[in-house]
């Protein structure tokens, strides 16, 4: 009986294995996207997916490129390690996509990147800011700036705009993103003549930060740099307020989410963060994008992830158009040769590391919304 079962199982596996997947039909260009539509970082994934989808719809309404329309194939990776590899394998080997768009989180982009690279399929990450992502190989691109730049921008902001002399750094040791930002911030800030008043750690997902915040308070800094993600940051802001730590808190693009405002309420008021774009910036490109997004998604204001998701798809379409082909190699070459692409998140070029070189904006929480403060160029 056991033998029978085993034989059965084995033949079932082999049958499934030999079944072959589809491919690109002649009239459409199939683009794969993987995003965290469910799980811990779902708000990022949903935003970037909505932006990407809007871009594909706009491209198709304008007739597509090379006389073909785009077809977007989206897969959810549940914000879980181990999933991106499966999902990207499926998109490439089973669905036969010409390019991959994704992911927001650097750790998941890092998992998917070697697969895209091995298959010679260009992959464009909308918002993975960790430098290592594009180091994987020459088929991996991104349309956002990287952590060293963001860390330096915040160091300049702290010295010039906040006029801070002593800054405490509160890092999420569970997240490489947070550690990267903290490192580059510290380098930039000490170089500009500032002092680091204290370095404290937390673990993403913690609920109580009072011990560390008390230590920070006793160090009496002028401001606190918190390079974390929105849920943790909201709780940190609330508890800092309760402890009477009344100095500005500031961080990176991980702050940007409606959830920060919903949880933090008045405790996040007046704090700052750097990000990729401002929805209230006075640029015709941004205004048109915000209007289109609001119309498509029932009045929702697009956040940075949505704008980057939109840009990643537009950037790919631009590359395919310039390549004049959907061949992976040709798209790769066209993308790598980008010198001036007008994105919603600002003008950008692609450097030799396949990273986007572009400006960052600083936003402030004011009256329960994110308000544009200033733009910082590279």
């Amino acid at each position, binding site marked *: 009986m056991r033998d029978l079962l085993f034989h059965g199982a084995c033949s079932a596996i082999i049958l499934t*294995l*030999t079944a072959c997947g589809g491919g690109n039909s002649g009239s459409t260009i199939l683009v794969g996207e993987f995003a965290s539509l469910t799980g811990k970082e779902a708000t990022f994934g949903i935003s970037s997916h909505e932006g990407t989808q809007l871009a594909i719809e706009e491209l198709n309404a304008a007739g597509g490129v090379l006389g073909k329309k785009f077809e977007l194939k989206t897969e959810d990776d549940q914000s879980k390690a181990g999933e991106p590899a499966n999902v990207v394998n499926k998109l490439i080997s089973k669905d036969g996509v010409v390019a991959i768009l994704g992911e927001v989180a650097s750790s998941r982009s890092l998992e998917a990147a070697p697969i895209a690279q091995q298959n010679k399929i260009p992959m464009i990450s909308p918002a993975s800011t960790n430098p290592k992502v594009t180091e994987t190989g020459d088929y991996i691109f991104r349309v956002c700036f990287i952590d060293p730049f963001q860390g330096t921008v915040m160091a300049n902001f702290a010295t010039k705009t906040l006029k801070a002399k002593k800054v405490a750094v509160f890092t999420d040791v569970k997240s490489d993103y947070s550690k990267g930002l903290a490192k580059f911030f510290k380098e930039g800030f000490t170089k500009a003549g500032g002092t680091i008043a204290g370095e404290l750690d937390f673990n993403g997902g913690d609920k109580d930060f009072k011990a560390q915040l008390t230590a920070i308070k006793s160090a009496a800094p002028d401001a606190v740099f918190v390079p974390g993600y929105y849920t943790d940051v909201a709780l940190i802001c609330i508890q800092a307020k309760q402890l009477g730590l009344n100095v500005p808190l500031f961080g990176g693009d991980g702050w940007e989410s409606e959830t920060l405002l919903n949880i933090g309420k008045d405790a996040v008021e007046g704090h700052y963060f750097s990000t990729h774009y401002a929805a209230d910036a006075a640029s015709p490109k941004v205004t048109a994008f915000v209007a289109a997004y609001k119309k498509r998604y029932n009045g929702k204001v697009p956040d940075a992830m949505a704008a980057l998701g939109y840009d990643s798809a537009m950037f790919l379409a631009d590359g395919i158009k310039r390549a004049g082909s959907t061949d992976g190699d040709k798209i790769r070459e066209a993308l790598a040769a980008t010198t001036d692409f007008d994105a919603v998140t600002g003008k950008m070029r692609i450097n030799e590391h396949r990273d986007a070189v572009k400006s960052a904006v600083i936003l402030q929480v004011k009256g329960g919304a994110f308000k544009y403060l200033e733009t910082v160029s590279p």
Partner: protein
Amino acid sequence: MKSADGAKRWLLVGIALAVVASYFTPQFNRYYLGIAIDCGINIILAVSLNLINGHTGQFSLGHAGFMAVGGYTAAKFSLVFEAMVPDSLKPLLFVAALTLGGLIAALAGLGVGVPSLRLKGDYLAIVTLGFGEIIRVVVQNMESVGAASGLKNIPKWTTLGWTFALAAITIYAVASLVNSTYGRGFIAVSDDEVAASSMGINPVRYKVTAFVTGAFFAGIAGGLYAHHKQFLSPTGFDFLKSIDIVVMVILGGMGRTAGVVIAAIILTLLPEFLRQFADYRMIIYSLLIIGLMMARPQGLFTLSFKKKGAASV
């Protein structure tokens, strides 16, 4: 005796099939191949956990921890020695990496097992859960294995052949261990610890043996996983991963090897088949598991396995 022959035949058939399948690997679609390897790795994890949770009746929630120990050890070993070894010796290096991963995981199993296996039931579950989390947090802070950003560029050495051959060996080892005279002790401990010790069986020793053996194979599975995904990050080894493996064991039927193997395959394939339902995927998945548990609370495949085992005594 009859049962031992059956197990041996099973092992040989399994290895032969793995070798044949491996031969045709280049023709397989990569996605299906990846899923098939996932199946094999999950079989090893589920069958080894079944030795602890099923046969010996100890509720462990730390299997992902052992898997992490094995995976990181094997991956680091491969990364260090990869450049020093000529291509022809790579398979040997892979075996060495996997074995080392398994042994270190077994050592971790011994380390956790000896002090904590005097505990029973819920208390043991909590200790093993804590152990799994400790491993994850330690890895997260170890710069030499990439800390929170993960370990990348691990060579891709895991093939269908390796995975299924090792799965067959795991099944064989666990089945023969449990079916041996010595192995009756596991079941005795599971059935009634007090009665077993009054018969001269040392329950702690049996529990530690089960723990160490289970951890060894979990370590091997971790090594295969590392060389399959080529990227390890600590978040992939949190307690949810342990729960996934426990679900395979419970769904398959505690202590039923065949059932656990089938459950591991089903639970790996199911989420993939459900991809077409997009947003509703995980809801359907959970509903199916609830449905299966209600329909077969004793586990999927209880069949004639127990009867056959009893007849051979």
